[in-house]
């Protein structure tokens, strides 16, 4: 705080007894009165789509809820017919969203999904990052936090959060996706409902390899157990190789401390691997020469495939993409449409995204927006003139290993009709109706 700021603040605290807030409120009342019956109130354009197209606001965020107040005490919810005729909100302690923009996660009892139909680009706002926990979000005191590393090591050690932050830090932009990230069943489903269990952040922390060197991991250690301090004391066994390669103990997310829902104060981050292995609230790492066969890696995150087989330790997330504009519940008009979406692969970079605007008969290469990062959501675009005739649009991701995102039919051919619900990454199609309505094309599965 500069001297000037201090002075201003003192003035505000001790000055005349007409605080700014009261004045703003008075102004707001008169403005609100002026609005009654006037055409000054404008409906906010639907988020995640170009201005000018009509949003269906029935069951989506987009209609402004004007009841809230900003954490700084300034009322940011007043709508003026002419913003140039009223003083705006003064600087505050925390930023706010426009009252016209209200993207929300979609929670169930066990998870909460990212609203892709309302977002742009590749970074997921931290408060919209998907959630999946097995016994709720624990509240952990960072002063009491400790990470224990023991088992097949030369020196079993405990690290406080402060200790972890003293080590050389790294940063990486990459996605985390739950391996159960697929829903289908009806036409009125959003991208959030279909695949909202993936999100992307800049993760900041210490490489696990740095900690492995510090404790002296035994050369014969082949697996390690990662254990969380939630009420499920969630555990997964991870090959030590991944720990040396690119695993991180992350304490930062998008420029601030990691959010409680994402593992505050520290989590395991395994780029490209199924979300469940990225153990949140990590408290213990035990080096071993065998996997522990925990509940999550046996009875849960495994999938049935052909011949009654059960596939286990399916760590890598295969390439996938989805068009987020246009998508349900957005509405489009005949003419130029820029198709937009995200593509990602847990095995490497996105090599290309192909888009079809004629129900899969022909495919064209979409433009990839830089940066195209390893194991990261990548934004793609494809400009298209829609003649207004009903059709289907879809996208297909290809990663730098040459893997092509499969159709549901190809997945069923490979895994059988009894295939389990994990690692299901089919091409997703949207139906464009003659009236500009966009509907999901549900997959026939089970």
């Amino acid at each position: 705080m500069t001297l000037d700021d201090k002075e201003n603040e003192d003035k505000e605290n001790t000055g005349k007894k007409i605080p700014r807030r009261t004045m703003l409120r008075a102004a707001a009342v008169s403005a609100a009165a002026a609005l009654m019956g006037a055409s000054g109130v404008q409906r906010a354009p639907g988020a995640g789509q170009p201005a000018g197209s009509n949003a269906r606001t029935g069951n989506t965020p987009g209609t402004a809820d004007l009841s809230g107040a900003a954490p700084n005490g300034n009322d940011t919810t007043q709508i003026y017919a002419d913003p140039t005729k009223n003083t705006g909100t003064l600087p505050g302690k925390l930023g706010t969203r426009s009252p016209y923009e209200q993207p929300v996660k979609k929670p169930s009892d066990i998870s909460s999904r990212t609203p892709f139909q309302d977002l742009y680009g590749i970074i997921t706002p931290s408060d919209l990052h998907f959630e999946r926990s097995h016994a709720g979000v624990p509240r952990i005191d960072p002063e009491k936090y400790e990470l224990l590393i023991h088992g097949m090591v030369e020196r079993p050690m405990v690290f406080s959060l402060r200790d972890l932050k003293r080590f050389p830090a790294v940063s990486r932009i990459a996605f985390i996706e739950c391996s159960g990230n697929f829903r289908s069943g009806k036409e009125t489903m959003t991208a959030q409902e279909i695949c909202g269990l993936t999100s992307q952040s800049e993760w900041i922390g210490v490489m696990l390899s740095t900690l492995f060197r510090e404790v002296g991991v035994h050369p014969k250690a082949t697996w390690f157990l990662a254990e969380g301090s939630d009420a499920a004391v969630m555990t997964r066994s991870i090959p030590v190789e991944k720990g040396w390669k690119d695993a991180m103990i992350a304490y930062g997310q998008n420029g601030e401390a990691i959010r409680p829902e994402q593992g505050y104060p520290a989590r395991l981050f395994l780029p490209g691997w199924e979300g469940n292995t990225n153990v949140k609230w990590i408290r213990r790492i035990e080096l071993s020469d065998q996997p522990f066969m925990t509940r999550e890696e046996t009875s849960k995150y495994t999938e049935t495939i052909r011949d009654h087989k059960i596939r286990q330790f399916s760590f890598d997330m295969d390439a996938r993409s989805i068009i987020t504009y246009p998508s349900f519940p957005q509405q489009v008009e005949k003419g130029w449409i820029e198709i937009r979406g995200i593509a990602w692969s847990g095995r490497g970079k996105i090599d290309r995204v192909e888009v079809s605007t004629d129900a899969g008969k022909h495919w064209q290469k979409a433009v990839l927006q830089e940066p195209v990062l390893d194991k990261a959501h990548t934004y793609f675009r494809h400009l298209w003139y829609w003649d207004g005739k009903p059709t289907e649009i879809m996208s297909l991701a290809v990663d730098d290993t040459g893997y092509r995102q499969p159709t549901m039919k190809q997945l069923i051919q490979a895994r059988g009709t009894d295939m389990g619900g994990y690692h299901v990454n089919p091409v997703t199609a949207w139906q464009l109706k003659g009236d500009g309505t966009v509907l999901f094309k549900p997959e026939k599965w089970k």
Partner: protein
Amino acid sequence: MLIKRSSCYRVAVVMVLGMLACHTNTRPPVSDWPSRFGFGKTATSRQIDSLNISIAPDGKGLPSGSGNAATGRTIYLAKCAACHGETGAEPTPNRLVAPMGDTSRVKTIGNYWPYATTVFDYIRRAMPFNAPGSLSNEEVYSLTAFLLYRNEVIDSTVLLNAVNLPKIVMPAKKYYVDDDRRGGNEVR
């Protein structure tokens, strides 16, 4: 069979390089890093013991104590039945009982879980849902025995303990295979 000596040398060189590559893990990522930073504290055996509750499929980590299905049933009715049903076979979202061959196609301990040690480990670390970590080792052995009995994996008379629990071969174990997806132009 003709193998030229130069080929042998080449193989040897490749092998040595390969061995060196295996050891690069412990090398610092930046050349001027110290061998250790000295941050953190050595963990005492007391600290380790207070946190270390892991159990391996070979039984390593299993505590002393024992329990049978009859005792387990009483504990089950008092502490588990509210969510899992009176017998464990009810069609709840958390169904636990369906022996191998059951036609309900629900994944349970009897038809899907590959290791019996996992049952003990999971109950002890995470159950009951409203009071996780509250069960004694005896109670956990008893509940494990009850659930394995109900799933027709063991006899009702078995007194389960650290010695016989890891020896149980679960019916579903034979179906487990490692991930065979490898990227590239194939769908698996």
